């Protein structure tokens, strides 16, 4: 590990000096300043939003960012196509819902179940991955797709345990000891949820970043580039892939627990291929596979398109056509078409990005700099990939 870190530090120093040359002032702070400012802004955001409606949106959007970060490990770093990501999300949600609700009158604490259900999801990831990761890469895609279809159906059909079509309602919500005049109950107040997901995401970013730069992370990228060559250098490809797959699954399970407690209910319909697996894949592919910043931007963009643009746009178009008195357009129901266009948009993004810009919207700029400076450590791997 130390060998891997040494050239990176040098790169950083050189980059810092570049910033200084450009006149950014105190170098170290200048580099981190945008991120510190961003985190500060995110921390202060709930104070500015008086009725907390935007905080609520952000608290749910955070789930998708977490999902995208997790899938990025599988698809972006290890190069494995997981089309059943929703299954682990569902497993996390239902594990929490069953163990912390009136369903069986079991009420285990959220803080225990959060890691536990991530662990359960990871176990399912290992159970599914262990036999299939030996197969060809594209078989994994179809096996995960099948698994992603099986899990929600099982939850829908196993009515005595999962509540069937109606799902489980009245899921417990997290509690903290009272602090600073706040009683510590999350309840339906989005603000504590917002801070919770913010903390989870920031911790995840640090964690994944360290993983990526670790021996394991480099092994993932080696496998993605050339599995045979990676195996020849002594990497145990099956174990390494399995770790990526299980880690991705645990992120999904983690997100599922949070999601279930935030929404207060789980229903099998929210875990379909179209509602989750593909959406997260679009986020990762659009933002840039293998680049965390890109993936986060991709997640926010897609979430915005799906929950805001496609819902608001039809209304705007309808009122615009009505105001302009364009009769034939009103009859054409443009708004309805817009609202139904999400599948088409997702499809165009997936195919279009792969054909025209496989590195995604935000290709890893950091690696470009590294390349320019001649430290080829990890850099080449990202250019040719995907």
């Amino acid at each position, binding site marked *: 590990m130390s060998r891997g870190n040494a050239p990176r530090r040098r790169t950083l120093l050189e980059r810092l000096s570049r910033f200084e040359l450009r006149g950014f002032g105190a170098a170290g702070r200048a580099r981190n300043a945008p991120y510190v400012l961003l985190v500060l802004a995110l921390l202060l955001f709930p104070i500015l939003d008086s009725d907390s409606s935007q905080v609520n949106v952000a608290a749910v959007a955070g789930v998708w960012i977490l999902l995208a970060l997790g899938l990025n490990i599988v698809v972006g770093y290890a190069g494995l*196509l997981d089309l059943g990501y929703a299954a682990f999300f569902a497993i996390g949600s239902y594990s929490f819902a069953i163990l912390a609700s009136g369903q069986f009158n079991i009420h285990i604490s959220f803080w225990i179940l959060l890691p536990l259900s991530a662990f359960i999801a990871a176990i399912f990831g290992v159970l599914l991955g262990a036999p299939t990761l030996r197969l060809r890469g*594209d078989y994994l895609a179809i096996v995960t797709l099948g698994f992603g*279809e*099986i899990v929600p159906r099982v939850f829908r059909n196993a009515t005595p345990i999962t509540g069937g079509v109606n799902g489980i309602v009245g899921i417990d919500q997290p509690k903290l000891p009272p602090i600073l005049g706040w009683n510590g109950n999350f309840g339906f107040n989005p603000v504590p949820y917002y801070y919770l997901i913010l903390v989870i995401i920031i911790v995840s970013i640090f964690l994944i970043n360290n993983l990526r730069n670790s021996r394991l992370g480099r092994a993932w990228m080696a496998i993605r580039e050339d599995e045979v060559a990676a195996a020849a250098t002594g990497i145990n490809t099956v174990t390494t892939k399995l770790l990526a797959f299980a880690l991705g699954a645990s992120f999904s399970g983690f997100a599922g627990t949070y999601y279930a407690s935030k929404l207060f209910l789980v229903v099998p319909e929210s875990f379909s291929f*179209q509602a989750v697996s593909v959406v997260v894949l679009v986020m990762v592919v659009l933002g840039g596979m293998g680049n965390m910043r890109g993936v986060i931007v991709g997640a926010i963009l897609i979430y915005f398109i799906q929950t805001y643009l496609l819902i608001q746009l039809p209304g705007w178009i309808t009122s615009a056509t009505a105001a302009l008195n364009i009769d034939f357009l009103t009859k054409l129901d443009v708004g309805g*078409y817009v609202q139904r266009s999400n*599948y088409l948009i*997702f499809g*165009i993004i997936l*195919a279009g990005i792969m054909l025209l810009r496989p590195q995604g919207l935000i290709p890893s700029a950091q690696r470009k700099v590294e390349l320019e400076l001649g430290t080829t450590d990890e850099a080449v791997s990202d250019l040719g990939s995907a």
Partner: protein
Amino acid sequence: MRFFVEQLTFGLTNGAIYALIALGYTMVYGIIELINFAHGDIFTVGGFFGLTVIGLIGLDRAPAILLLPGLVLVFAVAMGLNGLLGVVIERVAYRPLRNAPRLAPLITAVGMSFVLEGILFLLKGPNQVSYPNLLPAGSINLGFASVGTAAVLIVLIAIALMVALSQFIRRTRIGRAMRATAQDRDAARLMGININRTIAITFFIGSALAAAGGIIYGFYFQTIAFDVGFRAGLVAFTAAVFGGIGNVVGAAIGGFVIGVIIALISGYFQGGAQWSDVVVFSILILTLVFRPTGLLGMRVPEK
């Protein structure tokens, strides 16, 4: 006995549809080793092409004497159009990525699946669209049970198409080129085979067969919707894997077997219909894990 025959007929009819879709998966996989995720939706589009042609020539209101030539026309036009669609998709989405890392064409295929589904969703809306049943309504009495004429016809049409396909692959020059390309693309190119054209023809045939499946689906269930191809495609893919991916006869057998399995589970178990998909997708996973070459499959080397 009567119930068993009913379920068996239902299973074989569904199986015929799955088999027609599975042929496309298996042919494309055999020749370029791509899981064409869009194939299920190509099937749906084919069904809608058929519906459009029926509406255009007014076949659902035509006198009985014109029915047979009309049906032939519907199948021919829809299959041709759908074949062209398959060729266009291959040309636009898959060919540029033929030498790219494996992940790229797979993700593109998922994308094309959503493009097709999205277009149908836009044009046809979220609801079921009713489909005329132009197949004869009667039934054939076997003594111990009776079998619908439509079911018999469907299975016969499907088998006829399959036999035609296998003869085409076995006997014609193009068929030989397809087999050669599947075996070793570079060697085939050196032998003077036009690889691009051969792959395009494979997509044409696969998509045309899917269109036949789509029309039959419409006739049989008298309804079609923009997203029926997703589930049907996954079931058909299971059939292709079960029979041995890359193997045309295997896909046909797999389709019928899976169709019958679904029908028997739905018929004989309480609430079986809800669980049949779980069973089918479990078969998919178990086949891939324990016998990835399927019943009759060729050996697929890891690349």
